[in-house]
């Protein structure tokens, strides 16, 4: 009797313990899945003012030491703060930043990306772009740190960023509704550099060099041009490359390439620098970089500028202490968002010297080898501030601010694999997965009760307990339920039924053999147990192998299967036996309903 009491106490203890771990999961999924305030789309942040000289549209905006009054410095957290808040409002819903909800979310069982929607991205860190002597061995870890910073600022709840193997990074963004934006944000190298724009003379030297290479190199192997006649006539001319451009009116180190010549110009340039991320150094330590887009693009001609800039970068993003979105930086587009940069101490010293020594020249602000803008230096700039303009949308500006604050990646990342699930499919999958599990379960339960009567009902109770322990354990381990995970639960139910049937059939057999109820139950359990141990071991072998080799969702399947197997031993063997023993402890059973 005391033995039974101890066992019941142990059983009740586990139920309470696992119930405690299940509680956050239940409470969390009772919360609404969407932000109740989400409909209130924040009004596009208003620009504060318009003033300043009307610029010549053909001329890049100028860089002055005194920004127009009322614009800068942006109070940190003011405008960007409003945007941030929109992405992460507080309130009682699952994605809320409310500390109570966050705690619940942390302790609840999570839904996999395939169930709640989200993006699963696999990046390869391209170490080949770093010269061997510059490699420090921690590039991947640094990249992870920077990605984490960026994603955190982006405001995704529960992102998961992990190293996989030697050079791979897996990023999981649950519930992310705009994967394109997330990808742009993560994948951007964000190498910010300030480079002096070369003189017109130096520019023409560089262009002449490419003319020469193109004219000598022929064009045959370039598949980009099917129409060789047009190309031949170009090569026949003296300036196959530079002939594609229009010189600007002023004496500046950039030329304009009209839209119709863009493809050709880019293909020619590839001849001399096959990898756009490593610009070739041309005579006069000049490199050629494309502009973000033509300034004229808004007036209808989507051509692009090509800049000759100094091969040595004069100041880099390393020295940026802060980068905030601010409005009205471009007098021509007062409503456009830009970025106000604040340099650190050293950066501001370099910037002061750089601007002081080069008054009258243009300074290119280069992001990932694209010239964002190239304002003219009007006078020496003290105070360590600069701004980036020429940004299309507020969102782009916000994201650029994020990547600049988080810092540049040590090298380029390439997206190797991606899996994005829309929220609608996720919701569908949950629905169908649960429906299938419930229907399967009910069918099994009905059969068990009809076929084995009281004993069958006890088995059904054991099945329910099994699922209870399984889900609670997932919550306890802060595990993730995926769609294959639901399939794993369905399979666990199958395994659990098997265990129960094995025991019940064995008991029936022993009863037929003439044993008393007590004897049959005892023999049934002990004889079935070896078999149960064997079946569980082999299934566990498959599950462990699956876990070891599987990726993402498949791991979820293996996890639920493993937990389910262990839970099953407890429910089908320990719990049901306990009930039989308790029934027989009170009185001698003549018959067993089985």
């Amino acid at each position, binding site marked *: 009797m005391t033995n039974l009491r101890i066992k019941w106490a142990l059983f009740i203890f586990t139920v309470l313990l696992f119930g405690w771990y299940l509680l956050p999961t239940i409470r969390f999924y009772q919360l609404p899945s969407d932000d109740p305030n989400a409909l209130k789309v924040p009004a596009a942040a208003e620009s504060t003012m318009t003033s300043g000289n009307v610029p010549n549209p053909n001329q890049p905006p100028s860089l002055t030491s005194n920004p127009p009054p009322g614009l800068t410095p942006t109070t940190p957290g003011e405008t960007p703060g409003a945007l941030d808040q929109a992405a992460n409002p507080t309130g009682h819903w699952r994605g809320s930043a409310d500390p109570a909800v966050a705690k619940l979310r942390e302790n609840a069982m999570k839904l996999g990306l395939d169930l709640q929607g989200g993006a699963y991205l696999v990046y390869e860190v391209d170490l080949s772009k770093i010269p061997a002597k510059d490699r420090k061995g921690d590039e991947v870890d640094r990249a992870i740190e920077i990605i984490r910073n960026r994603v955190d600022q982006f405001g995704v709840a529960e992102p998961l960023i992990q190293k996989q193997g030697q050079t791979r990074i897996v990023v999981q963004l649950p519930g992310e509704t705009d994967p394109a934006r997330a990808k742009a944000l993560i994948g951007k190298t964000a190498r910010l550099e300030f480079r002096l724009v070369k003189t017109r003379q130096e520019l023409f030297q560089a262009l002449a060099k490419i003319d020469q290479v193109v004219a000598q190199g022929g064009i045959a192997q370039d598949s980009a041009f099917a129409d060789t006649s047009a190309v031949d006539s170009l090569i026949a001319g003296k300036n196959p490359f530079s002939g594609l451009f229009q010189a600007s009116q002023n004496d500046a180190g950039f030329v304009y390439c009209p839209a119709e010549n863009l493809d050709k110009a880019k293909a020619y340039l590839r001849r001399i620098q096959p990898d756009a991320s490593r610009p070739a150094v041309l005579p006069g330590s000049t490199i050629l970089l494309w502009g973000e887009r033509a300034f004229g693009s808004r007036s209808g001609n989507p051509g692009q500028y090509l800049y000759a800039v100094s091969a040595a970068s004069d100041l880099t993003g390393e020295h940026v202490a802060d980068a905030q979105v601010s409005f009205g930086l471009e007098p021509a587009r007062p409503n456009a968002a830009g970025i106000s940069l604040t340099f650190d101490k050293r950066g501001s010293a370099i910037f002061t010297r750089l601007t002081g020594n080069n008054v009258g020249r243009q300074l290119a602000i280069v992001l990932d080898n694209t010239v964002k803008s190239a304002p003219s230096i009007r006078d020496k700039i003290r105070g360590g501030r600069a701004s980036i303009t020429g940004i299309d949308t507020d969102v782009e500006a916000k994201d650029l601010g994020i990547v600049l604050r988080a810092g540049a990646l040590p090298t380029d990342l*390439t997206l190797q694999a991606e899996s994005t699930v829309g929220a609608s499919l996720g919701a569908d999958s949950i629905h169908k997965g649960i429906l*299938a599990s419930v229907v399967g379960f009910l069918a099994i339960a009905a059969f068990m009760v009809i076929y084995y009567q009281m004993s069958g009902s006890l088995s059904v109770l054991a099945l329910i307990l099994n699922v209870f322990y399984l889900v609670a354990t997932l919550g306890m381990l802060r595990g993730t339920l995926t769609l294959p995970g639901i399939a794993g639960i369905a399979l666990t139910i199958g395994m659990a039924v098997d265990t129960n049937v094995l025991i019940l059939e064995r008991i029936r057999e022993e009863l037929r053999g003439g044993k008393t109820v007590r004897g049959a139950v005892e023999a049934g359990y002990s004889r079935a147990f070896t078999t149960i141990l064997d079946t569980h071991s082999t299934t566990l072998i498959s599950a462990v192998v699956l876990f070891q080799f599987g*990726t993402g969702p498949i791991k979820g399947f293996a996890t639920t299967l493993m937990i389910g197997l262990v839970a099953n031993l407890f429910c089908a063997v320990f719990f049901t036996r306990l009930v039989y023993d308790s029934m027989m402890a009170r009185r001698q059973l003549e018959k067993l309903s089985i």
Partner: protein
Amino acid sequence: MHEIFVGTRYKFMAKRKYFYALSLALTLMTIISLVAHHGPRKSVDFTGGNVMTVSFNPPAKVDDVREAVEKEHLESAEVQMAEENSQAIIRFRAAGQDSINVFNRFQAQMNTKNVTTTFRSMESVGPKIGKELEQKAMLAILWSQLLILVYIAWRFRRWSFGLGAVIALFHDVMIALGVLSIFNREISLTVIAAFLTISGYSVNDTIVVFDRIRENIGLLRRMTFAEVIDKSVNQTLSRTVLTSGLTLLSVISLFFLGGPVIHDFALALLVGFIVGTYSSIFIASAIGMDLSNWWVRRKARAEARTTKATVAAGS
């Protein structure tokens, strides 16, 4: 008390040649289908590429979808309609294409046909990762079979039975693969997971029978090996049929109600479980018996030879 398959005395071993023939025929069918389809049809998980699924409201015309896809100039694009044309699965290869932009342009195209398109999912796998996943999947299958073989050989002290179980489960997975191939279904990572589950399940079933054989060998010393096996299979028959039937209930429910994402997974399980039950009744122990008989005979012959040799030497 409801009972099925109790007290049966089927002579399974005597008829094992027919079941071998049936299994061989099914395996052959698999091989023929695989050859005809030029190997298993691998999903993007292994080949690399993109799969985009979208849903339409109202259901779209196939031609409209194809037209919209063609405008994208995607490499080897392929459109498959699902759920009565309210969904489409679009496969394509696109080096360096931003997959989401592909959807955005596709959506705009469909808008012109007055069809609202919703993004369901996108999967893109680079060829490098695909290769790796394929290797991993093969390794996973090989390892699980090897470990199961070792486990059974250890538990039953007989390699013949370990081999019997592994041959049976290999046969189950092959036939599941064959059925998927006949229906021209893709082999994805999830389907590989199904194969591994089939392995686990098939071995599970087989072990129940083997355990009974082990138990009976000790009890029924007067019976021949074949008789012991027949008795063991008969004794466990009700359990085998019951659990298989009940497990099938949950798989059938997954197959019909689980939705398109796990449809292939459920199909593989369905076939695998049915064949798994069949093989653990008719094939696994038969092979185990034949292998161990063959082994005993070989040993006997070898012994006879050595005895003869010693007799000859002695005379």
